């Protein structure tokens, strides 16, 4: 049973990283960035290209190369996020909700099928595969790669927390989330903060993508689709707009999935996740840590 917990936590950390981006963007501009899952996919492919084309330090395949590629991929996906916001979302800021959502669907398509054009429709094998010894922890098997990725994910989340809670940027983000008008009056450059939010959220998703590629071994242009949905589920479970909620929701969803598939069978994994989503939205739409919004009829 502990094995289920370990597996669940591991998968959950991926969900959490991607869910954070969702939650951050939603918190600040109340938009569910439908294309966010595809940013994860682009990150994975960015890592793929970096590993394949850059030789030397990278070819060693060791921890250093992973971290280096991770960093570069994060920067690239962060910039992608900023670009998308600038070009597709910002012009529509005063528009009806429906228009922005549809645009997000369009962006998702562009990312998916753009990558498909460039990289081909078939899954690509990651040139670097993380291998390592397996440890035995109280009866559960956990591998070195898993531990490393856990650590990286954890570090990223701690860094994010520090950024949001302590830095000026972070305060600005929270201010805009609470009251955009007041924040503007206080001198906050709303546009710049929103761009930064997209950067950070997309970078986190990109990191998750690289790690997923390195761990699972293959990447394909549709890998972001399901992750996007699961990350949304995680964000909802934890309380959307709430960063701790995203982390909690990710971990929780990973655990739920782990236990769920143990009972129902692997092929029901995704159905189980989506069922959780619907259940939460019906019964507790604000999530576990979500704030109580003023009740509207």
């Amino acid at each position, binding site marked *: 049973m502990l094995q289920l917990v370990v597996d669940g936590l591991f998968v959950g950390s991926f969900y959490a990283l991607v869910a954070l981006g969702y939650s951050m963007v939603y918190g600040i501009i109340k938009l569910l960035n439908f294309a966010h899952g595809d940013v994860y996919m682009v990150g994975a492919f960015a890592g793929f290209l970096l590993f394949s084309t850059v030789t030397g330090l990278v070819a060693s395949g060791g921890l250093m190369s992973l971290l280096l590629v991770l960093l570069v991929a994060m920067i690239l996906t962060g910039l992608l996020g900023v670009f998308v916001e600038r070009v597709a979302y910002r012009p529509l800021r005063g528009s009806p909700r429906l228009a922005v959502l549809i645009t997000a669907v369009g962006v998702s398509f562009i990312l998916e099928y753009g990558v498909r054009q460039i990289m081909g429709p078939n899954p690509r094998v990651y040139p670097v595969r993380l291998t390592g010894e397996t440890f035995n922890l109280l009866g559960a098997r956990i591998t070195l790669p898993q531990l490393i990725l856990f650590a990286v994910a954890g570090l990223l989340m701690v860094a994010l927390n520090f950024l949001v809670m302590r830095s000026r940027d972070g305060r600005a983000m929270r201010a805009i989330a609470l009251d955009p008008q007041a924040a503007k009056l206080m001198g906050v450059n709303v546009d710049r903060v929103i761009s930064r939010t997209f950067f950070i959220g997309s970078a986190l998703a990109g990191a998750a993508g690289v790690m997923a590629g390195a761990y699972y071994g293959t990447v394909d242009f549709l890998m972001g689709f399901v992750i996007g949905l699961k990350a949304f589920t995680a964000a909802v479970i934890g309380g959307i707009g709430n960063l701790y909620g995203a982390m909690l929701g990710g971990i929780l969803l990973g655990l739920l999935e782990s236990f769920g598939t143990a009972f129902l069978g692997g092929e029901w994994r995704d159905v189980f996740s989506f069922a959780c989503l619907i259940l939460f939205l019906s019964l507790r739409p604000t999530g576990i840590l979500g704030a109580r919004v*003023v009740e509207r009829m």
Partner: protein
Amino acid sequence: MSAEGQESSVAAVDAATTADVDRARGDGRTALLSVRDLRLRFGGVKAVDGLTFDAYPGEIISVIGPNGAGKTSAFNCITGFYRPTSGDILFDGESIIRKLPSSIVKLGLGRTFQNVRMFREMTVVDNVKTAMHARISQNVFDAILHTPRYRRVERQCVEDARGWLDFVGYSLDEDLLASQLPYGEQRRVEIARALASQPKMLLLDEPAAGLNHSEKQDLIALIRRIRDLGIGVVLIEHDMGLVMNISERVIVLNFGREIADGTPDEVRRNPQVIEAYLGADEGEES
């Protein structure tokens, strides 16, 4: 159900206010709309803090007060868009606190919005027709098959819509899209739309905002015409000239509760009201 019957849940001060007004009237008329100790909190902010007043059938009341006094919040509670933290609201004897806005409209309480919220993509006539939704019997099969009932109902709807549009003094093309109208006309059509829902009482949220002088005169005449139909009108307004001109009674709000409730003259001389407005000249010249 009389206003007096509610007093068991009302603080002593508020009871005195209501009883005063009733005595002034000299008749035991029943209030159509009764707001009792209404409270609304957003987090730490008390938007409405113990508001109590009555509105009687067929009278014209204005609700005034400095910005942030809670007027629109109160309106939103009354019309069902916000759920109050505590208190009660009665319309025609029924408590409407937990009701959906659409149910409240069906009971006969109509409203307009502070920032005119027309259906911009629909024509003027269709805008007015939407308000008839609850009063039409037409089902899906009627619509698809164009049954005689469908034709009858649609024809009558157009007829009625035109009647209301003429009543409010709308004189432009009825097939214009709402977004193509100038602001003053949009306000007019919004009122026609609210009237088409057959209200017993109409809540108008700053109907004069943004209107020029002659449009305001039209508005005054329109409000009186509405009252003559037997529909009560409750206005939120900032234009003091208009308020004093048209209201039979004025309720002044500050910090989320009423600080005065009487005729325009009484209110004008009320020291608390003067203090609330001290230094701020918010009314435009009529």
